[in-house]
């Protein structure tokens, strides 16, 4: 599946499915035969973005790998809600070891498959932002540097949700969490924080790095599919809202994710061997407040007296992204 937009007909490739698209343009999620790698009955919260992102990503990977897939999971929401004894929601071979070692464990799986000559079986490692950008970062960097044949997928919901919404290394500026109170001169998460693992991954010069969002399924599936076609270390960073931790209505999960992209706060791009090779343009450019307003974690920025300066700083950050990645095409954003 390519991620070139098909605009013809009502919703083009913006919706999950479309009765008039060529088979090659259809999403995996639109297919009745999709694997539902992450099955019903899991204990994720209502409207969980991570549950959705995981099924999106793994189903696409399964299709790309012809169902010959092994997944390694870091500790976190995804692991806890999907495999509480005595039930698991996974339909694929799946291994959970620790919070901080998923990339290394995946390297081991890949090594074992290589040793056993099982060339057709592919390996995926997945974790939340905590397990990826913080505690698992050392192992991740090692896996990148060795260029092990693993696709690592990070589901980024911007805080430690499993333990009750504490700040992580990818918590955005000004966000209120259980450990970044919305008081004082720098309310919420202090500025200058939040590391971009995609950029750090690029610095390793690995063959493929991409960012994606649950709000843009075609884009996400195209990137996972592309990543699965590459050998070596690959990284896909998926933005997945957490209704609980972000304080927004469960039905807004995709809406919020969409606004993050449309505001420029979460840029969608692809990089190969350390160079950005493609970006997904913003469709309808919006101001960041539209995105921030929907979330309780940013509530302190609004109302009286509010924090106009902070909002302006966040807007500036969004504009830096837009400039850096060229997210707005002439005539593209309406």
């Amino acid at each position: 599946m390519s991620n070139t937009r098909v605009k013809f007909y009502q919703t083009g490739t913006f919706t999950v499915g479309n009765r008039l698209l060529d088979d090659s343009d259809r999403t995996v999620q639109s297919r009745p035969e999709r694997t539902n790698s992450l099955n019903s009955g899991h204990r994720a919260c209502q409207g969980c973005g991570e549950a959705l992102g995981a099924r999106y990503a793994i189903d696409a990977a399964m299709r790309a790998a012809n169902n010959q897939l092994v997944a390694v999971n870091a500790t976190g929401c995804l692991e806890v809600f999907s495999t509480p004894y005595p039930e698991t929601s996974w339909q694929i071979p799946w291994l959970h070891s620790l919070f901080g070692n998923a990339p290394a464990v995946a390297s081991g799986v890949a090594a074992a498959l290589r040793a056993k000559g099982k060339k057709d079986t592919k390996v995926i490692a997945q974790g939340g932002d905590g397990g990826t950008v913080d505690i698992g970062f050392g192992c991740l960097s090692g896996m990148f540097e060795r260029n092990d044949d693993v696709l690592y997928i990070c589901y980024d919901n911007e805080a430690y949700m499993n333990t009750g919404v504490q700040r992580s290394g990818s918590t955005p500026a000004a966000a209120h969490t259980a450990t970044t109170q919305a008081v004082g001169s720098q309310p919420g998460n202090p500025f200058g924080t939040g590391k971009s693992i995609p950029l750090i991954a690029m610095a390793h010069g690995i063959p493929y790095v991409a960012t994606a969002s649950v709000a843009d399924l075609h884009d996400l599936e195209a990137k996972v599919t592309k990543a699965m076609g590459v050998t070596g270390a690959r990284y896909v960073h998926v933005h997945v809202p957490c209704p609980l931790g972000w304080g927004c209505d469960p039905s807004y999960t995709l809406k919020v994710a969409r606004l993050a992209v449309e505001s420029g706060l979460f840029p969608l791009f692809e990089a190969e061997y350390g160079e950005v090779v493609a970006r997904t343009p913003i469709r309808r450019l919006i101001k960041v407040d539209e995105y921030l307003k929907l979330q309780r974690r940013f509530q302190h920025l609004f109302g009286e007296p509010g924090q106009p300066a902070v909002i302006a700083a966040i807007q500036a950050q969004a504009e830096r992204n837009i400039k850096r990645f060229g997210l707005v095409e002439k005539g593209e954003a309406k």
Partner: protein
Amino acid sequence: MLKQIEGSQAMAAAIAMCRPEVISCYPITPQTHIVEALSAMTKRGELGSCQFINVESEFAALSVLIGASATGARSYTATSSQGLLFMAEAVYNAAGLGLPIVMTIGNRALGAPINIWNDHSDSMSMRDAGWIQLHAESNQEAVDLHLQAFRLAEELSCPVMVCVDGFILTHAYERVDLPTQEQVDAYLPPYDPVQVLDPAEPVSIGAMVGPEAFAEVRYLAHHKQLRALELLPRLAEEFAHGFGRSSGGLLSEYRTADAETIVIALGSVNGTIKDTVDELRDTGMAIGAVKLCSFRPFPLAAVRAALQKAKRVIVIEKDLAVGLGGIVASNVRMALRGLPVAVHTVIAGLGGRAITKVSLRRVFTEVHAQSESFAEPHFLDLNWQVVEKELARQAEQRRAGPTAENVLRQVNAIGTRVH
């Protein structure tokens, strides 16, 4: 085949003959020679399709093996000291998941102060992690234990540590009888995992287990080690049969038949102990020795049987449970509970301090003579002068500075004295 060879090289050769499929390692003295040798063999293609992975930390090294083992590959690594501590979380995890990984521990002290020399603090720190822990007396036994370790690990689906004294064995050149590949293949069948990550038969490994089943899971881990108690002697016997020499097992006795005093210890110090026992026997002292090979599982029954006839037992151990005393000694006491056998703890060889025949002889004689003055625990060759001086100094000034450096200053001779 007999060979005059460095311990690390000998072990590497034996491990290679076990046909490992994934080896992962991170450098730390004194285990490095083993993995360096394995790396060279892999590069030379002597290990077939075996994957040798250089990782960024010990934590990653064991994590890689967790993945590899769960995918059905025979997996090996080695570490020491701080490396084992850095691995700790994964050490528990590998055991919890029941993955038959074999790991060599080049036993070394734990800092601070940082110290690269031998004692057993490192492997002792992981004694409750659910791994089987076997200690080698000589490089011959180190070689033999690795062959048994893979067999044991895979039969039980439980990870095994082979503990080898750093430098004393790892860096010692001595005569070793290396097995042939045929012998090893006959003794060690290919790895047949009880669970494997396979798209043809998907399973979820590593589920979250709550109060309703956790205790049972822990009990089953314990039960595994109880089974190891039966399996170890059987494997040793089978080994003796196939290789023509005895190695391993739970423990072995030396001149204990009529011994009133029995010395028990782990690892390479047993050689020096045996020589000392011989000398004391020549003076007519009824003394014997027990070499403990399996520390986990701890062979309570076997230890009791070996020691119960003695009047007194001396535990020589290269570790210290700070605030308690001896770790091995406490285990031995548990084995002897209810029996009128005095158990004496001797903390010796910490951080590479040489354990000499002279010192052992002095201690054995003292204990055998039931001297009242014998302290419990007894710190072998402790320089009381230095200690008292330092204590006094600390007593008079709050900011007494770093103890380690102060002590060194007093014993002014780093590396120049023999002991």
